[in-house]
């Protein structure tokens, strides 16, 4: 009798649940903001949206930034992508060119045109249509310990050579052991790709010519590899194995005096792990990116993943509708405040909103935000592997990044291969890659 009761109850509950599941449109969103407070805000926004859209269920999943492209690709190969996702701008262009995305002009048009900085609005355009709208822009920044430079009477480095010299001078040795390195950098493949594009830009270089052919044997690239060789002598010996967060740990706990590839997000680590009396911008200051021997202006990486909506997604329209809701100030400002120095606004009107400015962290670390905004205004920022905005018309940068060829090129040089040889090897490999995919004639 009891068994029959349990069976019937389970059957009824199962039927009810199944019926509910059929009625609700589940919308899956993959995004790269994985900090608990950000996920909490996003889930709260989803809950608010669901109140007025009872037939929609928003499922937000956080993915590690470095894993995003691989996981999206695997999901696409399996035929089960999410409805919408963050992606690097070059990912978005690559997917748009392959016909995998739904245009999101309706999402872009829901915000006044003159309210958006063009760079954020046009992050992902293909064949005259918008395929991605950036969720929040940030610029990579160069961070240094102001107090340590002052103690040694050193000036903030301006050029590549300065950086090596200052890093060398900042290294501290005690009882034969290095207790502080002058500089820390991550060896994560994604960040080496970012570094190559960014440093090449500061050296007046490029990765591709107007015909889309790689230009890795050009002088600025050779100089870049020579620079990496010099950096290798002043960086911690294990830097090629250091993750992005390791470098923040090195900076915050005093094991390194400068961090080349930092982001506003790092402020949270400084506040948490650095001694309380120095966890401020007076000690952890930002400066312009250093300029290479053939370059004229600094350059940084634009960290602004566009929201992409997949063409065949069942919940594509609902995803766009939810994203319009997400960009409303009452939802967007709490999102930006969840990582305030990193998640900046894509909308000028939000930046001007007093509610946005009313944040203690923004007040305290204003200099970090000013530095990023300076790069936005001067157009000194570009997405990963993009040295010129025209590169955004090349749909194969994702493949180049994923292949790891540029990472191999840097490591070949760092391990002692002559720079010209490492560059020529990488050039051959990229040419083969592009030719095999039909992007380049042999």
């Amino acid at each position: 009798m009891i068994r029959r009761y349990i069976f019937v109850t389970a059957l009824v509950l199962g039927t009810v649940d199944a019926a509910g599941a059929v009625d609700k449109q589940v919308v899956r969103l993959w995004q790269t903001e994985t900090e608990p407070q950000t996920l909490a805000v996003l889930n709260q926004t989803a809950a608010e949206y669901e109140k007025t859209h009872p037939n929609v269920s928003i499922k937000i999943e956080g993915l590690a930034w470095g894993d995003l492209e691989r996981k999206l690709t695997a999901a696409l190969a399996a035929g089960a992508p999410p409805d919408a996702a963050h992606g690097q701008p070059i990912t978005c262009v690559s997917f748009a060119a392959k016909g995998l995305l739904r245009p999101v002009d309706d999402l872009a048009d829901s915000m006044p045109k003159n309210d958006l900085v063009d760079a954020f609005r046009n992050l992902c355009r293909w064949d005259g249509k918008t395929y991605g709208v950036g969720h929040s822009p940030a610029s990579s920044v160069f961070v240094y310990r102001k107090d340590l430079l002052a103690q040694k009477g050193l000036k903030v480095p301006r050029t590549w050579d300065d950086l090596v010299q200052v890093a060398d001078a900042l290294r501290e040795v005690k009882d034969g052991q290095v207790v502080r390195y002058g500089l820390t950098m991550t060896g994560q493949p994604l960040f080496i790709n970012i570094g190559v594009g960014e440093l090449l830009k500061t050296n007046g270089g490029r990765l591709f010519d107007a015909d889309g052919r790689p230009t890795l044997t050009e002088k600025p690239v050779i100089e870049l590899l020579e620079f990496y060789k010099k950096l290798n002598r002043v960086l911690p010996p294990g830097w090629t194995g250091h993750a992005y967060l390791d470098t923040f740990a090195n900076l915050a706990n005093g094991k390194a005096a400068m961090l080349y590839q930092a982001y506003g997000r790092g402020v949270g680590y400084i506040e948490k792990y650095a001694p309380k009396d120095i966890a401020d911008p007076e000690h952890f200051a930002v400066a312009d990116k250093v300029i290479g021997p053939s370059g004229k202006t600094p350059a940084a990486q634009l960290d602004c993943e566009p929201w992409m909506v997949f063409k065949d997604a069942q919940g594509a329209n609902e995803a766009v509708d939810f994203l319009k809701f997400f960009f409303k100030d009452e939802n967007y400002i709490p999102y930006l405040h969840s990582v305030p120095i990193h998640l900046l606004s894509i909308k000028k009107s939000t930046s001007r909103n007093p509610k946005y400015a009313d944040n203690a962290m923004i007040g305290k670390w204003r200099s970090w935000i000013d530095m990023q905004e300076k790069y936005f205004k001067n157009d000194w920022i570009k997405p990963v592997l993009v040295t010129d905005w025209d590169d955004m018309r090349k749909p194969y940068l994702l493949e180049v990044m994923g292949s790891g060829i540029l990472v191999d090129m840097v490591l070949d040089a760092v391990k002692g291969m002559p720079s010209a040889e490492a560059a020529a090897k990488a050039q051959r490999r990229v040419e083969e890659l592009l030719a095999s995919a039909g992007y380049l004639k042999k």
Partner: protein
Amino acid sequence: MRVRAGAAVLGVLWILPALVLIGALILYPVGYAIWLSFLDKHSFFPAERWVGLGNYLKIARDVEFWDSLWKSAVYAAATTGLQLVLGVAAALVLHAPFRGRTAIRALVLFPYMIPTIVAVIVWRWLLNETYGVVDHLLLRAGLVREPIVWLGVDHMMTSLIAVSVWQFTPFVVVSVLARLQTIPLELYEAARVDGAAAWARFRHITLPQLRAVLFVVVLLRSIWMFTKFDTVWLWGEGAGAGREIRTLPIYAYMRTFTYYQAGFGAALAVIMFVMLMAATLVYFRLYWREEEVVA
């Protein structure tokens, strides 16, 4: 006659589920991979182009392939060899009677039981040259003057081999220990009466008795280490130095999911399969020949 035919049909019906499972889970994927290897196919688009042996010819000229093959061979040989030596030694120790033996036997299994991701994260912490315990202890003991950069380009493969040996040696220990417990004690007693020392007893009794189990262990472990993906991937994950451990399975994955060349990736997988099949056949033949000589 009718009865015999009916029995045959019944027999086929009995093995049909197994045949269907083998076909669906083994033959179809392998067959599909072989078919895919003859195509130029993007990883997530249905369009495909027949290229015959084109992918294989490209692989033959691909420097990265030969580099990955060499790394796979080094990794598989070093880890299998070390697991074998350490596993047999540990099994011999655990076979001898001593207090706390049962607890130690249980403890030895521990590395094999914990999930790979946990093992990798813990060892990456321990071996970090900035804040890891291993370098700290080595420095304090005066064994090294500078921290060893286990996760850098120079020692990435060494540290991976060490962690893999730590993780998978318990398999050898358990296999060998189980066989040791079935060797008749009379053999050792007779040898003792004849005046055989410990080394002689090991060489002339234990080792021959372990032949069959060692054959299986070497076969399985070398196949598993050659095709090992998770530990290798996680160890090199997120590090530029990870290319120092870009073994063949990792390279096949990269070609499929970052170059988007599913055909090329499948060809790499087929090459791995053929190489392992060939090595296994040679290994079997050598074993049988030796068995015949012994017999």
